[in-house]
């Protein structure tokens, strides 16, 4: 007998439909899986066999062949377990073929017959069309977000057998997910003083600019970065689905609704492996931190401490919004369009921001400077010096504006940019700057002076103008030409980094 069961596998953040074809017939007893299964799929044989026998069903002691189609594609993961089990039961006539028509199955089975969660159910379910979907209970909320057909959460293989043999109706499992102990979204009102850094955050949020904070330990760089997502608008439906797919594929806990609706904030430590930051590695090409930050914020604290390989690899996604991961003959792309926020000390001793405070020697300083490559630094439209909040501010400083207040201005500025040019200011092409970010003659004179004294490169010139556009969009919505004070502030938010005092100027 023969049965063909729809299921799917995961590669990167993408589901791929797979037909699990099971043939039970004459020949020496055996259980073979063909169709490019990798080691993780071959292990399914032992699990499925035990699970079937633990579910008051019979293991057909004859020749069983499982073909995973399309056969030229490599399959990995334990998500095919359930489909294989159902296929074996149907091919051995323990459940009627009719009963599984228009159903697809995703899930892992345990030796005891229980049905267990797998990562990537959202993208896997997304490619299964309008079939009804049988999924593990813990994955039901994410399946519901993307499924076109009905979602049938199931806890044990035995339940399925009973349903298919018309002994019971579909079980009614509680699929609500306990809300995580939600850490409250950090509010900008907690940041005391630091008007420059606050302004930089607001500009970053409004224009989508990558932002680098340079300051001594204790200047609150991490605290500031963590407050950027709160200033960003919620994800639209399409972004939310994309992000949910990635988070699901990576096995990251999803919100109770199953849908990621707020911009994510990811902060991989500099000691994290390259694979965990960039992605790939395993057979299923697990998305890395840079993909988990898709449509959100990637925070890299202590930027110079990251391996040169990591620094080098993230430059491509910064440009293209996707990361290519490859392993052996497999390769795929995973979305990774994130807003980068990084932080670093100005120098090894940490005090080099302030004149006369640095105690680093030339050699240490040069070594430190060499760790942050110019090409990466150049990606940051905003490079802002942050200082330790002064003591008076800490003791008596009035609370600053709240995230909600600032977010309103951010939303207005983003709307202005979208209606003017159909994109955020960070994505303004150089050729469009004269049209969308014209300068007053005074502002132009300032930039010309900077370029004449070699403090500003050609690329820096364009970045300054994009930032200035955002500053103007926030302060005076509707103003077309960018004036002198605006360009001056934009220039001051492009500080030189890791240069020895007196080492000369460069942008």
């Amino acid at each position, binding site marked *: 007998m023969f049965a063909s069961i729809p299921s799917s596998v995961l590669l990167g953040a993408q589901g791929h439909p797979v037909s699990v074809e099971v043939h039970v017939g004459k020949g020496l007893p055996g259980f073979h899986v063909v169709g490019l299964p990798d080691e993780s799929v071959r292990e399914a044989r032992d699990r499925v066999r035990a699970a079937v026998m633990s579910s008051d069903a019979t293991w057909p002691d004859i020749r069983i062949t499982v073909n995973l189609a399309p056969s030229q594609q490599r399959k990995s993961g334990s998500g095919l377990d359930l489909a294989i089990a159902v296929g074996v039961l149907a091919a051995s006539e323990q459940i009627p073929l009719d009963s599984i028509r228009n159903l697809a199955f995703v899930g892992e089975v345990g030796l005891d017959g229980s049905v267990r969660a797998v990562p990537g159910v959202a993208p896997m379910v997304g490619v299964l069309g309008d079939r009804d979907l049988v999924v593990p209970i813990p994955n039901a909320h994410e399946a519901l977000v993307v499924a076109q057909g009905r979602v049938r959460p199931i806890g044990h293989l035995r339940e399925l057998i009973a349903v298919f043999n018309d002994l019971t109706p579909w079980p009614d499992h509680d699929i609500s997910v306990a809300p995580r102990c939600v850490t409250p979204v950090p509010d900008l009102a907690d940041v005391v003083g630091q008007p420059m850094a606050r302004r930089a955050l607001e500009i970053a949020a409004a224009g989508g600019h990558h932002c680098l904070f340079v300051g001594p330990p204790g200047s609150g760089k991490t605290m500031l970065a963590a407050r950027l997502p709160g200033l960003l608008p919620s994800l639209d439906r399409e972004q939310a689905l994309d992000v949910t797919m990635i988070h699901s594929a990576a096995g990251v806990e999803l919100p109770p609704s199953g849908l990621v609706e707020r911009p994510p904030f990811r902060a991989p430590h500099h000691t994290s492996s390259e694979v965990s930051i960039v992605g790939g590695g395993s057979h299923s090409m697990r998305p890395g931190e840079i993909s988990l930050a898709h449509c959100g914020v990637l925070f890299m604290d202590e930027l110079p401490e990251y391996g040169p390989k990591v620094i080098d690899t993230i430059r491509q996604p910064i440009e293209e919004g996707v990361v290519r991961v490859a392993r052996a003959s497999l390769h795929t792309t995973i979305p990774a369009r994130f807003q980068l926020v990084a932080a670093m000390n100005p120098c090894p001793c940490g005090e080099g921001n302030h004149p*006369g405070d640095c105690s680093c020697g030339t050699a240490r300083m040069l070594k430190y400077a060499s760790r942050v490559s110019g090409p990466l630094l150049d990606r940051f439209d905003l490079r802002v010096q942050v200082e330790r909040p002064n003591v008076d501010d800490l003791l008596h400083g009035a609370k600053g504006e709240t995230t909600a207040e600032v977010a309103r201005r951010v939303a207005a500025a983003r709307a202005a940019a979208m209606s003017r040019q159909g994109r955020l200011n960070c994505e303004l092409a150089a050729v469009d700057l004269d049209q969308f970010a014209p300068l007053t003659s005074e502002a132009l004179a300032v930039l010309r002076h900077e370029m004449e004294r070699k403090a500003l490169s050609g690329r820096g010139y364009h970045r300054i103008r994009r930032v200035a556009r955002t500053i103007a969009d926030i302060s005076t919505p509707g103003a077309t030409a960018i004036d002198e004070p605006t360009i001056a502030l934009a220039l001051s938010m492009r500080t030189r980094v890791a240069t020895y005092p007196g080492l000369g100027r460069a942008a």
Partner: protein
Amino acid sequence: MSEHMGAPDEWFIAALAGFRDMTTARLRALQAGRSAHEAYRIASGEVEPPEAVAAMFQRFGGLRDKWRASARGCTPTSVGERCAELGVDIVLPNHELFPAQLIDDPRRPAVLFVQGDLHKLDARRVGIVGTRNPTRSGAQTAARFGRELADEGVVVVSGLALGIDGAAHRGVLASADGVPVAVVANGHGAPYPKRHAALWNEVAERGVVISEWPPGTAPDAFRFPQRNRILAALSELVVVVESRERGGSLITAREAGERGTDVFAVPGPIDQRSSAGTNALLEDGAAPATSTETLLMALGLDHRRAGRRRFESRPAPGATGTRVLELCRAKPHNLESVSTALGVELTHAAMELARLERAGWVAEAAGWFEAVDEYSEFV
């Protein structure tokens, strides 16, 4: 028998100074009552060491082997010829040119390696020292003292380091007949720091560059405090312009104090780290150096200098600009602190600062603005 029989005395001592782990004290112990040639033969292992030297070998295990190995590369001829090549004079204490101020020093150097004419030290001498990471204001002050003292015929001694030292030397060089003197911690032939290679050569050309160690000696950390003692000994008074709490210039100040040399310090803002050392010196009784006149007076020189007023070509800043400039004269300010002090929007403060910078009234480094004076170019 040694192949260096005919070499002059100073070549033997010069070679010995280049031996590994050689110190001034060891060099003097080797020489005690012996000819230079004899001292070299002892250190290089050609002859059995006398009791005192043998005891030293006993105390510092490995020293004997290190010196033996050194003798193979560091021969009197090789060192002597290298010095001649570089135009470096090897000056022993018995030489007429050996600086008088060092002859009776408790830790008198056994040899000096000198580029330039030591006669130039026969003048009034002021040491100017300070941190390698000064504020712009500190560096400008060093350059001002250097230039104005040189204008009065005073020789300025410093250490060729980055920061204050460099600014002082450059100030001296800006004076028509200024005589810069540098005491360095490494050997001639490989200027350190590299960024001061050109400055080193200029100082050697116009003045004097002195080292206690032969050409090729690396700028090892332990050599700097030793250098500082020579700098202090050569100066009639020492001015510390800026120094952090534990800066190397405080060692120079202490060496000066031990030699009865007057120490001056430039007062700085109390919350500025680069002034913490100098302010501490002032608390300990150092004299405040608030102008070149103060220093000239201390030297007993006529201090009624003709004021050098430069024609002011910079366009006068407006009312707000003037207030910003005043802030930046008092101490380094950044955009945030200017905006807070004036109670104006960040954009507005940024514009005022940018205008002042464009007009040459202030200069920016890493987001901090300091007032610029006529000594800015020497920073």
